[in-house]
């Protein structure tokens, strides 16, 4: 179902425009088909589209019941993720929204929780309570409660079944015993969640600036920085540092998928790509700020690595174990940097951080248009050989020295902590 109402080529901008007018179900189908056809492909575009869609979904849900909201978001989220499982940011945004709803639902209940606690400990320990809700036992500590009553995960073995372990999915048990007052005070969960999604959208807009704020801590005068592909986050980062310091940038292009965009970034002739139509497109290139930029093919990376002081990479998504999925060629660069003991810094917004554990690295790699490697005009050749064009690389955690997110710099081994701060455990597989 292509977006018919808009004349623009299908993409983020046209999608966001159509979102206002189209009915919800059409919008969901539109995004699914956009994702499937890869007409939306940058991480941030996918994240933004997902966030706006969920905003619409929530505001169209005429209910204040957290359980129903969660169900609705889950069902939409599942379809979106199924449409493009490798675009992990979609799942990330869905999980964040689910977490928002759960937080709001629990905040609402918190006061009741403390009251009902004392009375309920003599309750018989039904096996059902532990079976159904054992997951929630582990997640309580993430809630911002101060009391000692928050069970700690290792204690879950010994502790009571939670007096109020119900997920918002079972709202019947959530109604406080004899606290009708608390219920009338219940705030509008939906409005709060919509505000929360608004914050996520704001975060998506600001993430590059926030990351760039750390640039001066990491880029020093007269350093030689190597980067790869045309990541706007990296460009922002370098531009921020370039305002104050003089350094050299070696920019490796990634033929055949990203070289044109890389050339454009270096020369400053951004194509009129409406998907990226934002302030970045009007940015000055680094060269105008007096930075020496050397453009090299990525096959030359190893030869130049001995002269490089720091490698700064953008990424497609970051995984919970500290590994990352980035443009093809990144692993070669990271490996070369390791051999030369050059620090590798990865800049990425927190929204790209996925709680998914990479069980199967191969399944994370997306394969693109083979005609970019050998055009189909070369029919004879194409007939005889198998042409592949992988778009991404999996880079294991041990090749990365530092992650810089909008929250600051983190060691790869610390990422699990940020994951558990941002996503609820019960949402990891929704």
């Amino acid at each position, binding site marked *: 179902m292509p977006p018919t109402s808009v004349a623009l080529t299908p993409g983020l901008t046209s999608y966001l425009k159509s979102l206002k007018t189209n009915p919800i179900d059409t919008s969901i189908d539109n995004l699914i088909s956009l994702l499937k056809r890869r007409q939306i492909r940058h991480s941030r575009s996918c994240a933004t589209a997902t966030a706006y869609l969920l905003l619409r979904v929530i505001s169209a849900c005429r209910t204040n019941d957290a359980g129903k909201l969660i169900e609705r978001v889950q069902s939409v989220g599942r379809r979106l993720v199924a449409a493009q499982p490798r675009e992990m940011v979609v799942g990330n945004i869905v999980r964040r929204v689910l977490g928002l709803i759960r937080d709001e639902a629990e905040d609402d209940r918190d006061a009741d929780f403390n009251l009902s*606690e*004392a009375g309920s*400990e*003599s309750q018989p*320990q039904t*096996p059902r309570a*532990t*079976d159904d809700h*054992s997951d929630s036992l*582990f997640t309580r*500590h993430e809630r911002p409660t101060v*009391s*000692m*009553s928050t069970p*700690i*995960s*290792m*204690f*879950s*073995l*010994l*502790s*009571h079944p939670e007096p109020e372990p119900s997920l918002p999915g079972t709202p019947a048990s959530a109604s406080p015993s004899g606290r009708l007052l608390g219920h009338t005070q219940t705030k509008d969960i939906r409005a709060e969640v919509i505000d929360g999604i608004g914050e996520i959208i704001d975060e998506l807009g600001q993430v590059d600036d926030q990351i760039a704020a750390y640039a001066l801590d990491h880029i020093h005068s007269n350093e030689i920085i190597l980067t790869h592909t045309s990541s706007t986050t990296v460009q922002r980062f370098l531009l921020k540092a370039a305002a104050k310091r003089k350094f050299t940038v070696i920019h490796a292009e990634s033929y055949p998928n990203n070289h044109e965009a890389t050339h454009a970034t270096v020369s400053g002739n951004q194509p009129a790509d409406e998907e990226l139509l934002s302030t970045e497109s009007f940015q000055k290139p680094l060269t105008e700020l007096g930075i020496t930029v050397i453009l090299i093919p990525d096959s030359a990376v190893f030869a130049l690595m001995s002269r490089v002081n720091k490698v700064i990479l953008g990424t497609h998504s970051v995984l*919970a*174990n*500290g590994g990352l999925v980035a443009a093809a060629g990144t692993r070669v660069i990271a490996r070369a940097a390791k051999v030369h003991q050059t620090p590798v810094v990865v800049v990425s917004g927190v929204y790209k951080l996925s709680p998914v*554990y990479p*069980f*199967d690295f191969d399944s994370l790699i997306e394969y693109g248009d083979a005609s970019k490697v050998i055009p189909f005009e070369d029919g004879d050749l194409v007939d005889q050989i198998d042409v592949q064009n992988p778009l991404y690389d999996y880079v294991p955690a041990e090749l990365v020295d530092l992650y810089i997110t909008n929250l600051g710099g983190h060691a790869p*081994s*610390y990422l*699990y*902590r940020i994951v558990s701060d941002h996503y609820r*455990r019960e949402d*990891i597989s929704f």
Partner: protein
Amino acid sequence: MAAPTPTAPDVTKPFDIVATYNELLRSDPDLTMPIAAIEALVLLLTHSPSSTISETLDLLEKSTTHLKKSIPNPIGLSAGTDLFQRYLITTLQRPGQLGPAGDFNAIRAHLLSNGRLFIRRAKESRDKIAAFGRGFIRDGSTVLTNGGSRVVASLLQKAADEKRFKVIYVLSPAKANDGDASPGGDVEGMETVRELRANGVPVATIPESAVAYSLGKADVVIVGAEGVVENGGIVSRMGTYQIGLLAKAMGKPFYVVAESHKFVRIYPLGQYDLPIEQHVINYQTAEDIPDGSKQQSLAHSSDVVDFTPPHLISALITDSGVLTPSAVSEELIKIWF
């Protein structure tokens, strides 16, 4: 060992924590050391007449020390006793009926009534781990494992229901010669091997000396642990360390499966820094060996362990999720501070 203590022994008899602990371990082969320790302490508390908090904590402390002293390798069980002690203190401190203001008998009643529940939960956590861990075993892959870990066994069994994979099982040949260590005359892990084979999983058993040779055919190494220490390393059956080193050298992922109640608060700096006596390396000259064979079996008794440092471990699969080794310290900090 004293006469077998029933799970609810006579109140008149003085309570023997060591005997209870051993009995618990023997009566239920599925029980892990920390859980047996917790169970023994629960039984102790229900038998003790103490009615004040400090009296109870004191009793707990004394019995724990006694228990630790009487068991040759107390690392695993100390995870349980520590956890229990912290749980008790935290419960007593927090407001509510079980807290300082409440009735002390209430907590005793709670512990008594829930003794079985703890054990069941501990066993359930194995299922949870199996659920988390299934993703690590892919169709057509080969898993190398060792020892007699029940968590690994349950993980492999679960995975066998839905995946086709092969297993290379490292068996310790020393145990086979060592008649008294395994009452069934069985090498540790042989039962798992049989069960897996019965489930249609092709299993190859290899001696420890063939690990390096076989590792090239394996895609992933999955091992169990006796204790997970503060820096994320593991204390495990002797031989695990070398498998870890070899897996690292060959670039194979090395996963540890362990329940989170096995996290223990020690920080070993190396092999010889573990708080236990192990006479693994025995220097001898000819006159030290009056009759040669006796001395050797000691080094290969079933209890010897080694320490696998965290940098060899790709991830820990626990009941609270898949953790990096550095996440272990945080879990421990959560209960201690």
